[in-house]
C-alpha cells in the first residue's frame, strides 16, 4: 500500500481507480495499482491500457481520478461434481488454485469448491468435492495447535461420509503436518492426502493442477494412510505418493522437491493410481483424533563447534530432545554432560542423523556406546523431523520413560522401516 510521499500525492484515491498522472509535461492514463510493501514511497504504479505497469516518480507529479474502481464481478455459480463419491478438500493456506484479475493484476486464491471447480472444471469428473478452509496461514507459521485443529477436522470429514480427505498445504512444513496427522489419527480407515504446489497456481506452468488431481485420485483409492502427493519428477504427468512419516522436502524450488527417504514412495499416480502392496488398505470404522502433544520438545543439531550451553538451555526447558547427530548418531563429547543431565532429569533424548539417509547405529564406536549407556534412544531410520513430532505425541500419551522408549522404538505409522533396501538411496 502507498505510504509517505506517494500516499500524500494520492490523497486517498484508491487502488483500482482510473487516474491520470502528470509529471513534467507528460501524462499517463491508466489504473492505479497497489504498491508492494517492498516498494519505496517515491513512485506510484499505473497500469497502462496496453496492460503494462510503469512507476511514476511522485515529486512534481499531479494525480487526477477519472473513474472510481470498478466493482468486482459476482462470484461464479457453484458447480457440483459428479460420481457421487465425496472428497473433502481442507484448505490450510497453500494456494492450490487462483484466479487472476488481469485488469488489476490481482491474484486471488480460490477457497470454495465452486471456485475450485470453476478453475479446474475437469475435477468434477472425479468426485463430488466438499471444500472448506480450516485456516489460512503460511506453512512456516504452522504450530502444533494448527495440527490439532486440522486432525479434528480431518476426522470429522472422514466420519461424515467423505471417501478421503485432501489437505492443501504450503510445502515448507508440509511433512511436519503430515507426520503429526499420521501419529494423531488413530484407526485410520481412509486416505488422508496432503498436497501443495511448488510453482504458484496463477502460473500456467503451475504444478498445482496435476498435484491436486492426483491427490483427489489417491483420496478415492484403496488406501488407509496419511500421504503426501506431489510431482515425481520435473515433467508433468507423474506424481509420487509418499508415506507421511518417510517424506521430506529436499529442494527449495523444484516441483519434484518431495522425496521418500529410506523408503520407496508408496506409489505413483499417472493415468491411474498404483500403490505398493505394503500400504494399509481402506477398511471400515470410525477414525479418532488423539490430539495430545507435548510441545516442550526440541530439535537439536550437533555440529563441530556447537556450544554445550545451547543444549543445556534445551535440557532446562524441554521434556524431550531429538538430536540430529553426525554419521551413525554421534555428538561432540562436549555435549555429553548436558545429555547425561537430561537423562538424569527425566528428559527423553532421541538420536537421529544429519545424513537423513540410513539408520543410526550407536554400538559401533565407543562414543555411541557411551550415549546408549546413558539412556539415549536410538531413532533407527526415522527422519529427525518425524522423530520430533513423534516424540511430542509419545511424551503426551505415554506413562513413564520406559513406555516412551518402547513407543519411540516401535513403528506407529510406518516411520521406522525394519529393512533398508539398497535401491532407496
Amino acid at each position, binding site marked *: 500500500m502507498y505510504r509517505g510521499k506517494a500516499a500524500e500525492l494520492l490523497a486517498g484515491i484508491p487502488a483500482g481507480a482510473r487516474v491520470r498522472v502528470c509529471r513534467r509535461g507528460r501524462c499517463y492514463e491508466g489504473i492505479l495499482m497497489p504498491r508492494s510493501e*517492498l516498494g519505496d514511497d517515491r513512485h506510484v504504479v499505473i497500469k497502462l491500457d496496453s*496492460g503494462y505497469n*510503469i512507476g511514476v516518480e511522485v515529486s512534481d507529479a499531479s494525480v487526477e481520478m477519472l473513474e472510481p474502481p470498478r466493482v468486482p464481478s459476482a462470484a461464479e455459480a457453484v458447480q457440483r461434481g459428479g460420481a457421487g463419491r465425496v472428497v473433502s478438500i481442507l484448505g490450510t493456506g497453500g494456494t492450490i488454485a487462483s484466479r487472476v*484479475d488481469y485488469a488489476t493484476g490481482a491474484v486471488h486464491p480460490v477457497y470454495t469448491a465452486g471456485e475450485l471447480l*470453476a478453475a479446474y472444471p475437469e475435477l468434477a469428473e472425479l468426485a463430488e468435492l466438499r471444500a472448506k478452509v480450516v485456516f489460512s496461514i503460511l506453512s512456516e507459521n504452522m504450530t502444533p495447535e494448527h495440527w490439532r485443529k486440522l486432525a479434528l477436522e480431518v476426522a470429522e470429514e472422514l466420519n461424515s461420509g467423505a471417501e478421503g480427505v485432501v489437505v492443501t498445504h504450503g510445502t515448507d512444513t508440509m511433512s511436519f503436518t503430515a507426520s503429526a496427522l499420521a501419529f494423531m489419527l488413530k484407526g485410520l480407515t481412509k486416505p488422508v492426502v496432503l498436497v501443495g504446489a511448488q*510453482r504458484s*497456481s496463477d502460473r500456467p506452468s503451475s504444478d498445482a493442477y496435476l498435484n491436486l488431481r492426483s491427490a483427489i485420485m489417491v483420496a478415492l483409492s484403496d488406501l488407509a494412510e496419511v500421504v503426501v502427493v506431489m510431482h515425481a519428477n520435473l515433467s508433468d504427468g507423474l506424481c509420487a505418493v509418499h508415506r507421511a512419516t518417510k517424506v521430506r522436502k529436499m529442494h527449495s524450488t*523444484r516441483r519434484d522437491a518431495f522425496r521418500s527417504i529410506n523408503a520407496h514412495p508408496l506409489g505413483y499416480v499417472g493415468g491411474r493410481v498404483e500403490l505398493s502392496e505394503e500400504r494399509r488398505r481402506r477398511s471400515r470404522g470410525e477414525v479418532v483424533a488423539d490430539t495430545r502433544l507435548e510441545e516442550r520438545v526440541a530439535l537439536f543439531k550437533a555440529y563441530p563447534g556447537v556450544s554445550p550451553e545451547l543444549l543445556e538451555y534445551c535440557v532446562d526447558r524441554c521434556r524431550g530432545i531429538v538430536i540430529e547427530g553426525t554419521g551413525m548418531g554421534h555428538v561432540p563429547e562436549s555435549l555429553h554432560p548436558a545429555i547425561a543431565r537430561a537423562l538424569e532429569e527425566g528428559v527423553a533424548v532421541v538420536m537421529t542423523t544429519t545424513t537423513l539417509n540410513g539408520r543410526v547405529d550407536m554400538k559401533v564406536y565407543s562414543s555411541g556406546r557411551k550415549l546408549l549407556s546413558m539412556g539415549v534412544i536410538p531413532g533407527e531410520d526415522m527422519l529427525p523431523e518425524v522423530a520430533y513430532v513423534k516424540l511430542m505425541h509419545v511424551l503426551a500419551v505415554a506413562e513413564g520413560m520406559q513406555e516412551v522408549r518402547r513407543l519411540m522404538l516401535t513403528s506407529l505409522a510406518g516411520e521406522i522401516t525394519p529393512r533398508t533396501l539398497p535401491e532407496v538411496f
Partner: protein
Amino acid sequence: MLRVGFEIHQQLDTRKLFCNCSSELCDSYGMSVRRQLRAARSELGEVDRAALQEERRARWYEYQVPPRSACLVELDEEPPHEVNMEAVEIALQVALLLNAQPVDEIHFMRKIVVDGSNTSGFQRTAVVALDGYIDTASGRVGIATVCLEEEAARKVAENAETVTYRLDRLGIPLIEISTTPDITSPGQAREVAQKIGEVLRATGRVKRGIGTIRQDINVSIEGGARVEIKGVQELSLIPKIIEQEVKRQRWLIQVSEELKSRGVAAEELRTEAVEVSGVFTSTRSKLVAGALERGEVVAALRLPGFAGLLGGERGLRLGAELAQHVRIKSGLGGIFHSDELPAYGISREEVEKVRAVLGAGERDAFVLLVGEKSRVQVAAEAVVERARQAIYGVPEETRAALEDGTTRYMRPLPGAARMYPETDIPPVGVSPALLARLKAELPELYEQKVLRFVRSYGLSRELAEQVVRRADAELFEQAVALGAEPKLVASTLTSTLTELRRDGCDVEQLSRERLMEVFSAVAEGRITKESLPEVLQALCSPEVELEQVLEKLGGRVSEEQIAELAREVIASRAELVRERGEAAAKPLMGVMMSRLGGRAEGRVVMRVLTEELRRFLEG
C-alpha cells in the same frame, strides 16, 4: 488507405535476462522434460481467442536442456534472479536514441503465452520507455514503446501431440520496439526498419545473424482488417510482404463482394461433414487409399455458392487459406477442394459421386478431409469458420511470413494481452544519475559515424558506409590510431576479407586480436600493402602465428619490386640487350639473382625479367 506499424525484436548480446546462463545457441542438449500448460481463468471471464486455440489442442511441450545455456530458471524450477542491468542499460540507450522518454520505474509483467514457448506460460516483459519518434524522408513515425523482455524458447520439432523446444534461446534479453501505425507506404516501412536497425547496431551490444532480429508487421487497408505478420527476418522482404498483404486484403474484399452478390449466407455453411469413404474404396489416390487402410475416413463438406473461388494464384487462394486453418486447428495435413479436382489420383467419377452424395450443384464447391474421424470433425469446423469469414471480408489474424513474401495463417489476433505483475522481480528505478551517465555514453549513430569517417579519414562515402556497417567498426579506428593508413585498413576490413572468404579462407580465424596484431605490423612497416592479403591468408589457419608468417616472407620481394629491378638492370645494360635480344635474359638473370640475394624465387624472376625484356625491345 494503407496503415502499417511495426514491432521489431532484437536479441542483445549479453548473458540471459534473469539468470547467469550464456545466451549461446547449442547444437546438443542433455536432459529433457515434458510439460503441460493451463492459464488461470481470468476474473472477467474473458477468453483470449489465441490462447483458447492453443489450450484446446491440449498439447504436450517437451523442453530440451542444453547445460551451457539453460538452468533451473529456464525450466521454471527456480524463480528468476535479479534483472541483468547490462541489458536494462542497453534498452535505455536504444530508447534515448529513439527519442523516447524512459519511465521512472521499470515494472516487469507476466504476459500470458500458452503456446509452450515459455516454460512458465508467460513472457516477462517491461515497458522501458514511451513516446519516441524517428524521422523518415516521408515524415515522422512515432515509437509507441520500447520494451525489454525475454526471448522465447526455440522450437525444434512439432507434431500433433508434442511441440519440442530447446531452452538455449529462452531468456535471452530482447528489445521490442513498437512504432505507431503511421507508416503509409512499403518504402517508408523499409526505411523505418532500416533506421531502427541502425540504432540497434550502433549500441554494439546486439546479436548479429539469422534469427537475432525479427520484425512483426501490422498491415491494414481501407475496408480490410488489421493483420499481424510475424517473423520477418529480412529487411529487403518488408516492402514485398506489405505489397503482397495489400493485394491479399483487396482480393479477400473482392471474394466477399462476390459471395454476397451470389447471395451466400453464413447460415448455409454447415459444419456436419458427410463421410464418403465408400466412394474411394478402389481409388487410385495413394494418399486416400493409405488413409483408408489405416482405418481413417474421407469426409466431404459442401461449401454452397463457393464454386470457382477456391483456386487462384499463389498467395491468393481461398483453398490454401482453408487448408492452413485445417492444419493449425486439427493437425490434418491439408484438404482437397473441388476447384482443383480431379487431380492427385482422384478421378472425375469420384468427384461426381461426391457431388451426388452432397447434393452439390454447379454453384457449390466442396472440400475433402482425410484422416482420423475425430480430427476430421475438428477440420470441418475449421473449414466452415474460415469460409464464413470469407463472406464478411478480411479476418483479423496473425500470419507467418514466408520466404517468398507471402504469408500463412498462424492464429487469431491475440486479444488485449493478459498481463499481471511479475512479483518475483523488484521494480527497477531509473534514476536521473543513471540516465545522465547513459546520455553521456550514447553511441554515435550510423549517419554521424559515416560522415565523421569521410571527414576525418578521407574515406569515400561508400567505403565509410561499408566500414560502419561492420559489427567491428571500432576496430577500424583502433587500427588507424596505431598508425595504419585509413584507406588500407578500411579496404582490408571490407573487400580483402570478403575476397579471402570467397577464396575459401576461414576468415573466422581472424579474430579482433589477430587483426590488430596485423595492423600494428602494417603501421610499423613490417607488412607491405602488397603482402597484406598473403599474410591474412596464412593467418586463416589457426595454428599459424604472425611472426612465423613474417619470417617466412622474410624480406620477400614483390613482383612489382622484381620488375622494377629488372627495368633498372636492363637499362644499365641496354647495349647488350639490343645486341642479343631475348637471349640476353641468361646473363642478366645472373645479375638479378645476385642483386636479389635469394629473396625471390628464380622461376618468378625469370618470368618477370623475360616480360620486361620484351617490353623494352618492343618499346
